[in-house]
């Protein structure tokens, strides 16, 4: 499967609208199109296939029940479904936190290095190039804090441990990073 393949917003908006009207066929198609990306997000956070798939089921039950709440004016459908997935994953991580360095990445240094990875992947996509460029212009600590939290679901404490920095600094880096990114991207 192409890593960068995404469905046009219009297709997903229509499928969500039909799902809101109770159309099971539309819901099945929505699942087929969106589930692989949501499972990718969930696995990024919880790192256990069985738990990620259980959460994926929860996500789609929530999507079926709350499809009428989706408003296209408030954002892209994948952003809305991605929020559902992240919230589910964050709830699951509260119950059993996953250490980033406990899986494929054995050392804290590797975990810190991993926070650069998505930036490199983004560089090849036109529509996300702006964000990638803006991320590159952030100070390293801010960039790593945002990527470790948003992309890998790491907590304040985990990021502080990985980067070897005080908790207060991590909180401040994340806030400042978002402010800078908003100014840079222009939203």
């Amino acid at each position: 499967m192409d890593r960068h393949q995404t469905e046009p917003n219009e297709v997903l908006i229509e499928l969500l609208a039909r799902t809101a009207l109770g159309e099971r066929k539309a819901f099945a198609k929505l699942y087929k199109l969106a589930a692989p990306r949501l499972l990718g997000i969930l696995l990024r956070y919880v790192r256990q296939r069985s738990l990620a798939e259980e959460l994926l089921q929860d996500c789609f039950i929530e999507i079926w029940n709350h499809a009428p709440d989706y408003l296209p004016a408030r954002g892209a459908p994948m952003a809305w479904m991605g929020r559902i997935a992240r919230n589910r994953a964050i709830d699951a991580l509260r119950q059993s936190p996953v250490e980033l360095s406990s899986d494929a990445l054995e050392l804290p240094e590797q975990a810190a290095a991993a926070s650069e990875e998505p930036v490199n992947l983004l560089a090849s996509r036109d529509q996300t190039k702006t964000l990638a460029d803006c991320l590159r212009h952030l100070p390293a600590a801010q960039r790593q804090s945002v990527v470790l939290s948003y992309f890998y679901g790491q907590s304040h404490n985990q990021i502080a441990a990985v980067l070897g920095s005080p908790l207060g600094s991590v909180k401040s880096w994340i806030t400042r990073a978002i402010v800078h990114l908003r100014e840079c991207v222009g939203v």
Partner: protein
Amino acid sequence: MNYLIPERYQPLAARYVSGVLRGAARSRFEKLASVHATLQHEIDVCEELLAPLDAATVPIKPRRRNWRWIEIRLGFRPKHRSHPVFWFLSGTVAAFLMSGAIVTFSPQLLPQPELPTPVAVLNDSNGAVGMVVSRDAARRTLAVTLLQPVDLPAGKVLELWALRRDGTPRSLGLLQGKAPRVSVTRPLSDAVQLAVSIEPEGGSPEDKPTGPVVYTGSLILS
């Protein structure tokens, strides 16, 4: 504490969207955002900002059983199935019995079409029920049942509108014939009310009703 000043809600929204706001603080912020549009807007902006990071996620195809479980959990399919051998052995007996039953009760045994679900009851200006609007998921339409005759002047038609929370109308189509239907081509999730107006033939020349609004009702999408 007043969270509605940017110095307070912007860092919270940043930490919420990036995922580091957790536990009770996260729940509290979600509750606040659900009642304060400013906070919700801030969350939406931050999510749109960071969402492209998800493009760097490698899609993973879920195993087939996940969809089956979703269907079961939503009640779309039964949880338990009898063993295939049971069906094979009982098939002959069942077929024999059914052949007799079909002759007697055939209308009841035919697959029943999915019934349209009412989504709005429209009243006239006196509060009297005038129309029921139902969704027909199978045909992707809204079906309108007229409960009382409408006296339309010559050259006039009825037009169905969806009204958003801010009152902006969107035409859903003209109501023609005894059992009118309109196609659902765009999401209704942003609509809170339906309304019917009297318009010139061909429909309103503008993006809003130009004639009198004769029926209104709240939209219930469940």
